[in-house]
């Protein structure tokens, strides 16, 4: 059973963007987006393909330069943050992981780069956070294996452990549940919720699976060219943001206090 | 010489003794001076370095075919201990160990032969390395006809054979003059226009090259203008337009001249006025060295045969 979300009105804003516009060459992906990400909440970003979920996360992580607008991290402009400090505060997970010959431990150790630096002189707390992260994602059993020899799901969990090992205040995760089987998707959802509610981390994740997304505390629904709405899940359902965003009726049913997406089996017209 | 002076000085009267003594001293000084003049020959090589020779070198390595030929032409072939791989005249150098080319000379081989002189053309890399190892190098560049005389003279001085060098120079220049005069006498009108192909994609020998100089001495007109440089790569169309009377090519190309587009209209090709030389003869034409007269003779002979 999900824990009740803390009152958003009282939670401090850790990441805010105003009038954010992002374009790739001539193609405008996001226009005039203004959002607040609060501490201790799990925010899910949903939207159709090409609506800019990945772009939004990349821009918030500081990897893509926006064409217009500002981003403030903990009150300071994102561009004013020194690189290492920002990396300690913000952790980003890519949608597709590049193939690598490193072992799982080495990958997770790279998550501590912002803390331990170039020479990788690992202190006790580095090891402790790595261990915690790998334990939480269940990737300890293949700690010494090469990542390239792991299955898609195992690899995903190693990368998730890397992101967790950063012990950042804000996690920006692009499709953290890809390749995972349903039990592990559940585990990840539980993990993210725990991070948010118990550790006070702000988790923003782009999720394809609508049922999973609806278990989050808040939703950001992206349509073509902008934000259709952002707020709590009841607000999203009341405003039928999902249907607006996907430009097709989206059936959400409630069952035992849990919101589920019911795919329409009949043809659309 | 010394004892002569000495005996006179010892037997004379005191004034005569003094004169005799002075004469003896002078004579001694002259002889010693003469020996000293032979003792250290200092020459400037083509890399602008001063090289001193206390005595004529006895073990010579030559890394350039023309320098090998010069040493042998001066009769010092027995002093050679190794040559480069392209030296092939006279026949006896074939038996000598080959030390590579000028650019990839085998340093170890050269050092193990303990030479006291290495003759080469200007190449900084190997000269520097050999000098580091304590060997004497002398760089001589022979690119044109006048430089042949200079090279012969310098090598003659190094070897301690200046008279032979002068004699060789005399022989060469008189032979060249004779052949030139003969060719000039036989030619009628302006002389044939020639095209000398030095290498495959038409690299012509211009008048400022060594071959070009020989052809000019023979009274031929080079179709290549002087300002194009010694070995310009020509547009084949140029050769067709200038329509030379005689063409010099390598033997392998003789059959294929007519196949080149437009070349079958050239007078030399139409009338079969093509000269080609066997490699051994060709060497004497392209190498500025003591065999220049032989090369010139071959050129003259062929020109006379095929000229219109």
């Amino acid at each position, binding site marked *: 059973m999900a824990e009740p979300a803390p009152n958003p009105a009282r939670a401090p804003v850790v990441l805010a963007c105003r009038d954010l516009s992002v374009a790739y060459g001539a193609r405008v992906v996001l226009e005039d987006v203004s959002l607040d990400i609060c501490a201790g909440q799990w925010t899910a970003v949903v939207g159709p393909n090409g609506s800019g979920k990945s772009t939004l996360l*990349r821009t918030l*992580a*500081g*990897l893509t330069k926006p064409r217009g607008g500002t981003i403030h991290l903990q009150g300071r402009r994102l561009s004013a943050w020194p*690189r290492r400090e*920002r*990396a*300690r505060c*913000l952790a*980003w997970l*890519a949608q597709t*992981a*590049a193939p*690598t*010959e*490193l072992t799982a431990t*080495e*990958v997770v150790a*790279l*998550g501590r*780069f*912002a803390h331990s630096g*170039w*020479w*990788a002189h*690992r202190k*006790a707390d580095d*090891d402790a956070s*790595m*261990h915690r992260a*790998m*334990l939480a994602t269940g990737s*300890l059993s293949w*700690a*010494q294996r*090469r990542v390239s020899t792991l299955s898609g799901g195992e690899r995903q969990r190693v990368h998730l452990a890397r992101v967790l090992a950063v012990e950042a205040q804000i996690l920006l995760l692009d499709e953290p549940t890809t390749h995972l089987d349903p039990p592990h998707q559940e585990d990840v959802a539980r993990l993210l919720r725990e991070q948010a509610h118990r550790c006070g981390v702000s988790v923003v994740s782009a999720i394809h699976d609508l049922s999973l997304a609806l278990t989050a505390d808040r939703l950001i629904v992206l349509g073509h060219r902008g934000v259709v709405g952002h707020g709590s899940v009841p607000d999203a359902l009341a405003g039928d943001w999902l249907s607006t965003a996907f430009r097709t009726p989206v059936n959400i049913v409630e069952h035992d206090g849990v919101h589920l997406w019911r795919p329409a089996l009949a043809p659309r017209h | 010489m010394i004892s002569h002076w000495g005996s006179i000085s010892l037997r004379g009267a005191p004034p005569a003794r003094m004169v005799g003594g002075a004469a003896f001293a002078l004579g001694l000084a002259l002889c010693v001076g003469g020996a000293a003049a032979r003792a250290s020959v200092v020459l400037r090589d083509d890399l602008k370095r001063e090289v001193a020779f206390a005595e004529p070198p006895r073990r010579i390595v030559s890394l350039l075919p023309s320098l090998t030929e010069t040493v042998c032409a001066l009769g010092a072939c027995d002093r050679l201990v190794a040559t480069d791989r392209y030296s092939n005249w006279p026949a006896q150098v074939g038996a000598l160990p*080959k030390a*590579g080319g*000028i*650019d*990839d000379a*085998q*340093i*170890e*081989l050269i*050092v*193990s032969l*303990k030479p006291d002189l290495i003759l080469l053309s*200007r190449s900084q*890399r*190997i000269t*520097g*390395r050999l000098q*580091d*190892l*304590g060997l004497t190098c002398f760089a001589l560049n022979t690119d044109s006809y006048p430089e042949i005389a200079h090279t012969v003279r310098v090598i003659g001085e190094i070897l301690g054979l200046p008279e032979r060098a002068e004699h060789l120079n005399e022989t060469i220049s008189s032979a060249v003059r004779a052949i030139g005069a003969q060719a000039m006498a036989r030619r009628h009108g302006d002389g044939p226009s020639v095209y000398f192909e030095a290498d495959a994609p038409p*690299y012509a020998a211009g008048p400022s090259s060594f071959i070009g100089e020989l052809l000019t001495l023979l009274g031929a007109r080079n179709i290549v203008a002087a300002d194009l*440089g010694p*070995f310009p*790569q020509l547009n084949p169309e140029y050769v067709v337009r200038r329509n030379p009377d005689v063409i010099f090519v390598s033997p392998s190309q003789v059959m294929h001249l007519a196949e080149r587009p437009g070349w079958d209209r050239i007078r030399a090709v139409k009338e079969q006025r093509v000269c080609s030389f066997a490699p051994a003869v060709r060497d004497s034409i392209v190498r500025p060295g003591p065999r220049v007269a032989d090369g010139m003779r071959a050129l003259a002979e062929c020109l006379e045969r095929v000229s219109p």
Partner: protein
Amino acid sequence: MSALRPALADIAAGRMQGAASQRLGAWLLCCLAITLLLTAGGLLIGTTSVETSWKWLLSPDAQSSIVLWQIRLPRTVGAWFAGALLGLAGAVAQGVFRNPLAEPYLLGTASGAALGVTVCLMAADASIGGLAWFGKLGVTGAACIGACAATLLTVTLSRGVVQTASLLLSGIVTAFLLSAVTSLLLLTKPDIWREMQTFLLGSTGFISWSSTALLGVVFCICVVPATLLSRGLDALTLGEDTAQSLGLSLPWLRLALLGVVALATSTSVGQVGIVGFVGLIAPHLVRETLSVNHRQLLIAAPLCGGALLQAADLVSRWIIRPAELPVGAVTACVGGTYLVLLLWRRSRDG
């Protein structure tokens, strides 16, 4: 819980699992042994037979001392350092470009060296006022400067080190551009073509003790920053965006690493000419036999590269003795064969 404690201990100790570290140690010892063997071979092989060389070693005289200690030994040791530089540059280039086919000459260094050599040979001949000093640098200095200048041109053309793909492209453009300029210059003075070609074909025959010292010093200068930055290369394998999000400054990292590649390659080209495949094959050989992260790779690849070039030098001296093959030809044969084998094995394994 008990299963977790050894795992924690492993992580805490930062040690690789026993078997893997043993393998690395054994590999390094093996490499060192091979190097020593090849160095001994370098003393014995040359224009004389092995027996004669052996006699020389036991009862030296003035002349054999020169051959053994002034010609053969610096040549072998210098070849090792040159190969080590190429192996290091190749490993770093493969890491920076994240491409297993990357090699040290990708940034146009080969064409830059050719141009430098051409200009130097022309300046030495013609004594054109401003260029006369360039001629005095000697072919080695000119090749080195040309290679560095080519790298600079590549980096400038790609507008800094923003994107790896554009670096590769501008490397190719630079190579073509400088080759064209070299060809044009050669037209005005075709007789230096042979000397330039021979230099570029690669030769270990001119290495003296001063060359060896230079190669050694540059090797030490290059290996230190490379190993310090090796963690950045590890991070790069996760993807450029991920590496950036971890706190790496990608432009500075790439600049520093490319600087190492440029310096290592230029020095090697200056002393031994263009020797292909060593920089490409050495990291591959290490990765085929060992599983390593970049810190270990940047130590093992130079060792492998050094031994490779030493072996190639010996082969070039031995096969047609007392004549020699250009060492670049030997490495091309060996390297080409190895690549063909690799491709065949990959296609067979599917």
